[in-house]
């Protein structure tokens, strides 16, 4: 009896797992299918290429070759903004994270500083978007890649501070102490001894910041008009300006998703502590 029950149980378990795998993957799968269909087939229920419909690379060709000149602009904007904000957030976060890991700020209290950084995560973006729009307008950085880098890097620096502080704290302090005894300055110790040891964490937080800024929508919607338009805005625009062109949308959607999904899978280990600002380590 127990053997039979066990079998039923594990079959049931796998059925559930497969059901949810389909649930989570189906939308992405469907976009792939639509992207290799002729526009006339985009609304049919067929899923098997060659057997049920004639596959085509027409849509990919249109997006990647025919109109590539303008598409590259959006991808380039998003990449530049992602790299810029990733670099600044990692740098500032690394510095502050190191100080918070190694030094006790007696007057304010390290825990209070950390909590302040944490509390920033909970600010509603719309509350910032309104005044930042006016601010950017008055300093002439509206619709400007530099403006976007400034906003994203400051929004994501708190994440990087808290994640990096954890990374620094996990290192034994002895090596740094002996470097200090040998007369090395804080910055030199940080550069020569500590930083090489936290490269994985630095890379992860850099990629996370890149992903966050790649996916961000609200600030991009408010702060970009034409020159600095990013990929999500371009995506959203596919629908509103030309009606529902599912075949085109699916290609753009897949191009836009490939980058964050790849980076996300690479930094899986850090994604939880990244998303919860180091509060939960998974």
């Amino acid at each position: 009896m127990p053997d039979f029950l066990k079998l039923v149980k594990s079959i049931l378990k796998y059925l559930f797992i497969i059901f949810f795998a389909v649930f989570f993957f189906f939308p992405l799968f469907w976009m792939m299918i639509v992207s290799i269909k002729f526009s006339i087939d985009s609304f049919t229920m067929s899923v098997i290429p060659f057997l049920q419909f004639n596959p085509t690379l027409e849509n990919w060709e249109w997006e990647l070759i025919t109109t590539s000149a303008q598409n590259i602009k959006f991808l380039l904007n998003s990449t530049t903004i992602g790299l810029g904000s990733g670099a600044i957030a990692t740098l500032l976060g690394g510095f502050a994270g190191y100080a918070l890991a190694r030094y006790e700020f007696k007057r304010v209290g390290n825990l209070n500083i950390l909590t302040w950084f944490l509390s920033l995560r909970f600010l509603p973006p719309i509350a910032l978007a309104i005044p930042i729009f006016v601010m950017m307008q008055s300093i002439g950085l509206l619709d400007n890649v530099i403006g976007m880098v400034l906003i994203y890097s400051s929004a994501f620096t708190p994440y990087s501070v808290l994640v990096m502080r954890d990374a620094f704290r996990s290192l034994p302090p002895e090596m740094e102490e002996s470097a200090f005894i040998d007369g090395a300055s804080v910055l030199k110790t940080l550069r020569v001894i500590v930083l090489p040891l936290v490269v994985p964490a630095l890379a992860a937080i850099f990629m996370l910041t890149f992903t966050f800024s790649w996916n961000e929508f609200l600030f991009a919607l408010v702060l970009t008009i034409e020159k600095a338009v990013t990929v999500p805005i371009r995506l959203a625009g596919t629908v509103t300006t030309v009606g529902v062109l599912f075949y085109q949308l699916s290609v753009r959607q897949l191009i836009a998703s490939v980058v964050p999904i790849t980076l996300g899978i690479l930094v899986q280990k850090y994604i939880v502590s990244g998303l919860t600002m180091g509060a939960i380590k998974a």
Partner: protein
Amino acid sequence: MAITAKYKIYHLLVLIAVIYILLFSIFPIAYMVYGSFTNWRLGVPEMSFVGLQHYVSLFEDYRFYNSLQVTFYITVIAVSCEVILGLFLAELMRGGSRFFRTIFLMPLFCAPVAVALMGEVIFYEGYPGGPVNGILNMIGIGNIPWRSSPLVAPFTVTLCDIWMWTPFCFLITLAALEAIPKELTEAAVVDGASSFQIFRKINLPLITGPLITISMFRIIDTLKIFDIPFVLVGGGGPGIATETLSIYAYKEAFRGFNMGAASAISVVFLMIVSIVSAIAIKRLRGYYA
């Protein structure tokens, strides 16, 4: 001397980050709070003080009440489904394969805009229907007006949010479950406990803490939901059926150009989020010690 130099450099390292953030977060918010007491309009250089006028009129504003209702409705349903589903999946996937785990995590990395647009394709209503309505037609349930009915649209938005964020709850719950020492469950098995009993009496009490923490993160993030309803149903439509607080403030500010009124909405919104955040922060402080 060396000690003071060290002392200075540590302060400097933190101060750079703090000042950078103050410039782009705290200063703008202070300006917005000031703006909410004026008749600030986009493109009009003069601002004059109007006191509490914007706040008073919010109390009679049916769109404000609507957006509050929509936001809370979406938050309550989405978060409870995400946490419960995440727990179920974590129980299911304990010790499971990496392959399925990666598939389960994929939605988490997609841009919310991309999720909304996938929703648009999946829930397509026109003839012969997107995949969801196509399947529903096949099994005889018929077309469901996913995006065009004001009654169904909030549910569709919620569904997209659940699709995207259940993986987050799943991942953290799984980590919490895997941190439970094996001896506990093994001892229970020896004593003849059923797997449901083990779950209820051993696992659940031990992961209550993480579950509450996850819920708080999700509640705060879902209160701020903007991208999915904005893109999926055309700016909080049909009508104002999915107009969340963020969307309402956005429309007031950037379509109506009433920056003063929009700031007032944002300030009230900020206060609501702050109350929940204060509870969350109090819990989370412990994790940093």
